[in-house]
């Protein structure tokens, strides 16, 4: 087991290094001179030259890369070119926002997706199954940003029920905080609910045809008991593993949702940074997200092996 984990970590290292190369080349790829953007209307050649020097843009690219990676390893992701804030601090500030959004979206998704999936599996082939499937696919097919706009139009502008944008830290005012995030979490959660529903359905179908469910039925247990106690409990493992993975997807999916609802989270930070050519921020965020994603994968793999004794002996 330990050797399996070690091997997975060893494999992750070159991947993370590759990511750092990709992320770094982003800066070289994006058009538009960052120094010009930083200087604004000040075109004094001395100032421009100084800024170029300060952000080490005159160094050869490999030197710049080595410098950046060296600092990143020590936890220094540089400073935002726009606000002069350390990138790590910015990320620390934004992460809780997006995590709250993702968590609420996850709650939505699980609340809708799992029961629908169970129902759909139990009633396989019926109209319920068919309708649930089409509804789920609809959830996957609605463009997030459009759903967001429509909700703002109806709920905020027309009916004035919920605020159209903003963010209140949970610690400041929990009720208000949840209220403000209700719409964006719903928007973000729709696609996820559909995915979860489909996975629950498929996991349940596999379990429902298995021997022990048949045995349980043969013992004369009530169908309700069979489904919830025996079948669902066994189907839960893959669902939970998947949810953990989806959580990472969710954080990435927050990009447009945050843009629409003006939520000061991760996604908005990175999109604004791309448009403002705030390279340090773009690099920092993509790196942190990618590494986070890989760690999540690693944990999911480990959990999967731990939960499946059969696989454990193989590794």
């Amino acid at each position: 087991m330990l050797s399996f984990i070690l091997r997975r970590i060893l494999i992750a290292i070159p991947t993370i290094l590759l990511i750092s190369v990709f992320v770094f080349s982003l800066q070289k790829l994006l058009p538009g001179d960052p120094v010009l953007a930083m200087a604004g209307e000040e075109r004094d050649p001395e100032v421009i030259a100084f800024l170029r020097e300060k952000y080490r843009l005159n160094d050869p690219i490999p030197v710049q890369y080595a410098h950046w990676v060296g600092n990143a390893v020590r936890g220094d992701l540089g400073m935002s070119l726009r606000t002069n804030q350390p990138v790590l601090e910015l990320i620390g500030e934004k992460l809780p926002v997006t995590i709250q959004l993702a968590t609420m979206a996850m709650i939505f998704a699980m609340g809708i997706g799992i029961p629908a999936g169970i129902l759909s599996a139990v009633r396989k082939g019926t109209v319920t199954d068919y309708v649930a499937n089409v509804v789920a696919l609809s959830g996957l097919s609605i463009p997030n940003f459009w759903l967001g706009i429509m909700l703002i139009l109806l709920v905020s502008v027309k009916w004035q029920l919920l605020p159209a944008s903003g963010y209140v830290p949970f610690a400041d005012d929990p009720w208000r905080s949840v209220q403000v995030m209700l719409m964006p979490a719903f928007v973000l959660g729709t696609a996820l609910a559909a995915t979860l529903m489909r996975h629950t359905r498929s996991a349940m179908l596999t379990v429902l045809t298995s021997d022990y469910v048949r045995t349980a039925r043969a013992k004369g247990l009530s169908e309700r008991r069979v489904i919830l106690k025996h079948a669902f409990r066994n189907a839960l493992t893959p669902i939970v593993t998947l949810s953990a993975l989806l959580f990472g997807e969710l954080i990435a999916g927050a990009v447009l949702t945050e843009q629409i609802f003006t939520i000061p989270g991760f996604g908005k930070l990175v999109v604004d940074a791309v448009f403002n050519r705030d390279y340090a921020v773009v690099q920092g965020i993509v790196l942190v997200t990618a590494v986070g994603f890989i760690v999540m994968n690693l944990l999911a793999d480990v959990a999967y092996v731990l939960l499946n004794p059969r696989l454990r002996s193989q590794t």
Partner: protein
Amino acid sequence: MSRAATPVTADAISARDPVLDRKPESRVWKKFRSHRSAMLGGVLVAFFVGMAILAPVLPIPDPAATDWGAVRQAPSAAHWLGTDEIGRDVLSRMIWGAQASLLAGVVSVLIAVALGVPFGIVAGYFGGWTDAVISRCTEALLAAPFLILAIALAAFLGPSLTNAMIAIGISATPLFIRLTRGQVLSVAAEDYVDGARAIGLPTRKILTRYILPNILPPVLVQATLTIATAIIAEASLSFLGLGQQPPAPSWGSMLNTAKNFLNQAPWMALWPGVAIFLVVLGFNLLGDGLRDALDPREQ
């Protein structure tokens, strides 16, 4: 994003032996025909494809013709879906916009397939260092969020529909590398491939005769589902101003403009969104149907 849709599992189709399973096509087609939601998806897709192809001959106004006297007018007999911010007919722009969306969906997926499948085959079949390098690159790319990658690439290439397609295509490529590699690995382990190797069939023949036919079905399913994702991605990029450029219409850029007029002209935002939704739903239903039809386990 529908990238997290049910993954096409490697074991689902690979078990098929082309010798034992004599006429798989007719069986597949039968299953597909009886798949109600897949047919619904097919109809939806056909409808929009028809719309895109027929746009030049339909009796609709020029999608770029402006009318300063009729700016942001509500739907009427003259303009069924109203007019936009510079007096163009929204219905006409919707119909022409289908071209951009479908083109973006199909072309970007073709790019992803054309890049991803060969890399996947090479990685899966030859293994070793080649595989290690390709796999690490794939993982690294997959770790960067899809849309952020596409946004950065589109920003790098400059805003245009072609560049958006390239950006989406490249961002979706690792998906196909991983899928193909997995398929190849499982097919290559089959007895009949071992047998073919044993009788000294050249690698090229093994690849074309045994490997390729077996990996195509899941790639086809994944491609159909990815078209759906790609269409949403194109709309997202256009929504951020990085896709189709005016005066040419696209649903995403129509929404980008429309969001500034939500109060005065809500119809501008409604219909392009509905269109995106329906065509994406169509591809998702179609992909699902294909998967079920090609999956020998589902009866």
